[in-house]
């Protein structure tokens, strides 16, 4: 059924097509519902995307057809003229790429119309691609480890940052893991350390991951290799790189159900652990909209808080 309709979103004209196409077959979640979710979550997600080069992960044939899915760094040529882009150097071979930049609801809806289910922004702003605004850790459980194991590691990270008087924030990856963000919003910070006492997020993140691994080698692994991850939490420090992206807070994930990368409070993390309840940290599109109504944007401080990297 090829349905097509012209809509107006915040004064912008948009054509939406195939809204009844089911993108999440196991949850019967349609493209219309994806568009609806992004339209509603716009006030919360847009500030986290604004000014950042965005990589889209598109699923034109739904989440189950990963063959048809693809990452798209180059902002599609057929975009409306009002969609903003930013030119960022994407590597010695890829050269400069015009990335999409999302600063408003119409752009978000247009991306949803492209079946861009997952939004992966840079950790830095496009105007300063060498300066991360956060230090990020992606805690990825290797089965049979699960999100509760990630919670344990997450709490240790929080405690570690406590020692340095730094606030940290947690969000679910929307998939299997947990991600910890330390807001920086500080011009002195770069990804790579420069000189002896540079302020690199990457070397620091790596050292922290190695320290966790050293303290509890049975629970934590800091190396990439898949084989070593079994039953452990992989503390992925390597996302702290100018060319890497991390799933956006409030982005849908292409899992069986329309789960969302959702900010959680440290109390919720502790409670999930105490009650041995991993499901309490799984949120779908509708849950997330409710949570935002109730708590507002728990991740707002990640954009505002200015913090310094610890001096070692």
């Amino acid at each position, binding site marked *: 059924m090829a349905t097509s309709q012209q809509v107006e979103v915040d004064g912008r004209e948009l054509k939406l097509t195939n809204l009844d196409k089911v993108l999440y077959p196991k949850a019967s979640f349609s493209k219309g519902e994806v568009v609806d979710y992004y339209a509603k979550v716009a006030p919360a997600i847009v500030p986290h995307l604004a000014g950042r080069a965005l990589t889209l992960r598109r699923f034109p044939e739904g989440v189950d057809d990963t063959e048809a899915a693809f990452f798209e760094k180059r902002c599609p040529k057929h975009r409306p003229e009002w969609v903003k882009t930013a030119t960022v150097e994407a590597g010695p071979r890829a050269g400069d790429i015009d990335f999409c930049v999302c600063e408003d609801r119409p752009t978000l809806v247009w991306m949803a119309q492209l079946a861009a289910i997952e939004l992966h922004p840079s950790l830095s702003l496009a105007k300063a691609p060498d300066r991360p605004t956060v230090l990020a850790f992606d805690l990825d459980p290797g089965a049979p480890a699960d999100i509760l194991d990630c919670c344990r590691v997450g709490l240790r990270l929080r405690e570690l940052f406590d020692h340095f008087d730094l606030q940290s924030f947690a969000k679910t990856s929307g998939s299997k893991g947990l991600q910890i963000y330390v807001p920086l919003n500080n*011009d002195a910070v770069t990804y790579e350390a420069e000189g002896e006492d540079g302020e690199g997020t990457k070397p620091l993140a790596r050292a922290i991951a190695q320290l966790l691994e050293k303290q509890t080698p049975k629970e934590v692994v800091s190396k990439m290799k898949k084989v070593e991850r079994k039953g452990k939490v992989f503390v992925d420090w390597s996302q702290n790189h100018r060319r890497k992206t991390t799933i956006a807070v409030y982005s849908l994930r292409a899992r069986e159900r329309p789960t969302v990368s959702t900010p959680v409070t440290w109390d919720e993390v502790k409670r999930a652990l105490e009650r041995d309840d991993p499901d309490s940290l799984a949120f779908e599109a509708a849950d997330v909209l409710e949570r935002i109504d109730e708590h507002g944007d728990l991740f707002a401080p990640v954009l505002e808080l200015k913090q310094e990297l610890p001096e070692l």
Partner: protein
Amino acid sequence: MARAIWSGSISFGLLNVPVKLYSAVARRGISLREIRESDGARIRHRRVAEGTEEEVPYEKIVKAYEITKDRYIPLAKSELEALAPEKSRAIEVKDFVDLEEIDPIYFDSPYYLGPADGAERAYSLLARAMEASGKVAIARFVFRNKEHLAAIRPTDGVLTLTTMRFADEVVPPDELEDVLPAETPKVAKREVEMAEQLIESLTRGFDPGAYRDEYREELLAMIERKAAGEEVVVAPVDEGEPTKAPDLMAALEQSIAEAQGKRDGGARKPAARKKPARAKKPAAKKRSSSRAKAKSSK
């Protein structure tokens, strides 16, 4: 436990030793995938009929022999199968020869032979007898639909089997006479002596472990560095970089220990988390006091 890739028996005369064949080579190549440079999309190869975009399913594809350009003799799978050598489970020993007689150019792939269940005694007996005679068995056997020639050798009670090339598979040097020397040009005796001396000085016992596939190691190292987010443009490896990380980790560890010491000693444990005052501070660098602040703000 290693998995046998073939089983049968070594037979010669009245002797029959049931054995299993195991690969002696760990394939350590690195398989690389193809992706589109711009966005990392996987490249799929599709079988299409030439001149069209039509994809041809696997079961519709047959092999053919090209007799002249664009003229093919198709060979059905059933026809090829009918020709395959009769499946036999015997490694038939034809002759015993001295190892030195075999030019290594004939050797192909190495395997281990292990005893089949219950044949351990016969296997050991054969291995010991061959070791005592110092001979290599030349045998024929059918493996993977192909007739093979093989050399069986004992080493420390274990039989190894090395498949061999048939004589007509090896190119004789005179077929390459335009590039390989056919007759010996005159060389000065002194030069030969010098070369011999050089060879002598480089002669040592053969240690296979002394030679490694450095290309493979470098490729792996490069992949790891790239996976770790480092942009790798040229090959040279900065030796200083890898050692830096552990130092930073040690510094981190020490720094935390100090912070802990201060807390446990002087100040109270942090109770409720409140926003530290410095959070709103501009990003000016005042590093010397940052550790002290960790305490004072609580």
